[in-house]
């Protein structure tokens, strides 16, 4: 296997309600930003994470569409789907493609245009990431599934309503320093707890938003990056891991434990030859506040049940021992589901390059991403290191 580096990153100038731009335009915009950042003049292959072009904009077959509009020529372009982990998985497929020696310059992108349909259609499209016949049939929603995880976590470990809110407060504080975010404003604990209840105990401020957005990164062999692409510090992908779990939450023995996150994390640490204590900065999949708490436990940053306390004690703040979601996370940045996993790679690459401005984690050398599908039915992790 060849060593692989990330040489270019790009996303839209701002995520959010991009009424004036189409599905194809937001993708091409992000991809061109990544291509310009890398200063490349060709792409050998492309992988695009997209959960549901069909339900959100009535568009499938997006490999053909997006390669055409990006002007890449007739390259192999593959759409990757693993619900909200589609972006992370697209990055992993691009990594495998370069590592295997099949392709040299590969674009890994993600795109979702969620705001062309009304709220009911959005809820339906997202619900297809759960078990249609044995979860959705009974009227459960994604906030509802994570609310049940939250109640189980609170019952088993004594995690508090306030600690859940503190995840949102921290991520919005980080996000207030990231102008690309959909909601780059600060909030406070009372505002989170007292906002509209969606599924007890989660309010709308515990939930990541619905977003239009795209992101893209460029990968190539490490040797080529060192030789030809010297404008940025060289960022190597040193670990990649992917795992699945039952799609239905109720099939899992422990409702508070995200096994796919644990396993994808362990495989990534093993490949990278690193431990949780080696990680300087990490982006995790905070689709809901409770998800960040569960993910940080499953990745081994904290003991089971201690994730809430860690947020309360500022351990996961930018100045903390293990900064989590310096970008603002899905919560503040927005969550265009297929693009989220790629935007996580973008944030970690910026951090390792030292380009994160006010959000910069001091001396960040090793960073990690964790991107999750559904209620934890799939998870993809990566570890990046500046060389």
């Amino acid at each position: 296997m060849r060593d692989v580096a990330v040489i270019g990153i790009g996303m839209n100038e701002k995520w959010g309600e991009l009424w004036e731009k189409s599905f194809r335009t937001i993708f091409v915009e992000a991809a061109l930003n990544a291509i310009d950042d890398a200063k490349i003049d060709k792409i050998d292959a492309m992988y695009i994470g997209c959960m549901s072009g069909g339900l959100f904009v009535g568009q499938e077959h997006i490999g053909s569409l997006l390669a055409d509009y990006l002007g890449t020529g007739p390259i192999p372009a593959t759409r990757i789907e693993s619900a909200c982990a589609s972006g992370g998985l697209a990055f992993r497929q691009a990594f495998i493609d370069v590592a295997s020696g099949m392709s040299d310059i590969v674009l890994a992108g993600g795109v979702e245009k969620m705001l062309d349909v009304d709220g009911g259609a959005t809820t339906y499209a997202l619900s297809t990431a759960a078990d249609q016949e044995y979860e959705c049939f009974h009227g459960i929603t994604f906030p509802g599934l994570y609310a049940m995880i939250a109640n189980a976590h609170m019952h088993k470990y004594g995690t508090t309503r306030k600690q859940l809110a503190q995840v949102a407060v921290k991520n919005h504080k980080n996000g207030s320093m990231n102008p690309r975010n959909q909601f780059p404003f600060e909030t406070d604990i009372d505002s989170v707890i007292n906002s509209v209840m969606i599924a007890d105990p989660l309010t709308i401020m515990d939930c990541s938003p619905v977003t239009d957005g795209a992101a893209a990164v460029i990968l190539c062999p490490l040797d080529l990056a060192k030789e030809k692409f010297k404008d940025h510090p060289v960022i190597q992908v040193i670990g990649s891991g992917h795992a699945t779990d039952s799609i239905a939450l109720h099939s899992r023995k422990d409702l508070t434990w995200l096994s796919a996150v644990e396993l994808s994390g362990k495989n990534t640490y093993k490949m990278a030859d690193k431990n949780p204590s080696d990680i300087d900065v990490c982006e995790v999949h905070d689709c809901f506040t409770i998800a960040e708490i569960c993910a940080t436990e499953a990745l081994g940053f904290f003991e089971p049940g201690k994730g809430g306390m860690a947020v309360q004690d500022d351990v996961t703040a930018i100045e903390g021992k293990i900064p989590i979601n310096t970008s603002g996370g899905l919560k503040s940045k927005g969550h265009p589901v297929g693009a989220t996993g790629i935007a996580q790679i973008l944030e970690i690459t910026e951090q390792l390059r030292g380009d994160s401005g006010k959000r910069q984690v001091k001396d960040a050398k090793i960073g990690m991403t964790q991107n999750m599908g559904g209620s934890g039915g799939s998870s993809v992790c990566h570890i990046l290191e500046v060389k």
Partner: protein
Amino acid sequence: MGITARNWREYPQRYRMEAAKCNKCGKIFFPPRLVCNECGNREFEQVKLAGEGKLKTFTVIRVAPSNFIDEQPYAVGIVELTDGVSTLMQITDCDPDELSIGMRVKIEFRKVQTEGDAGILMYGYKAVPLRE
């Protein structure tokens, strides 16, 4: 959309809670499946799920999917039945405030949703708190 056929296929589970018990290791699957994920065996015996259990977790849906809007707010939970099988269902005939993790429930046959403009009624199982 094929909703009618899709619903019809699930009648044995939705109406009668039919499950499959692995002939080799005894694990019970709901719905039935073709291969046991515990031992790899492919032979099963048909069993009916237990009619009682306890709440492992729950929530109250305040913002419902479009086909449940008339019902909101409503409670949904994961019930661990006395035979060890856990599955998700609505919790009905209750005040959401009286629900708690560990609470005992019984399973009843109820209307679950009305689908589409033609309005086919879809029935299935729901949990009702057992008040001792």
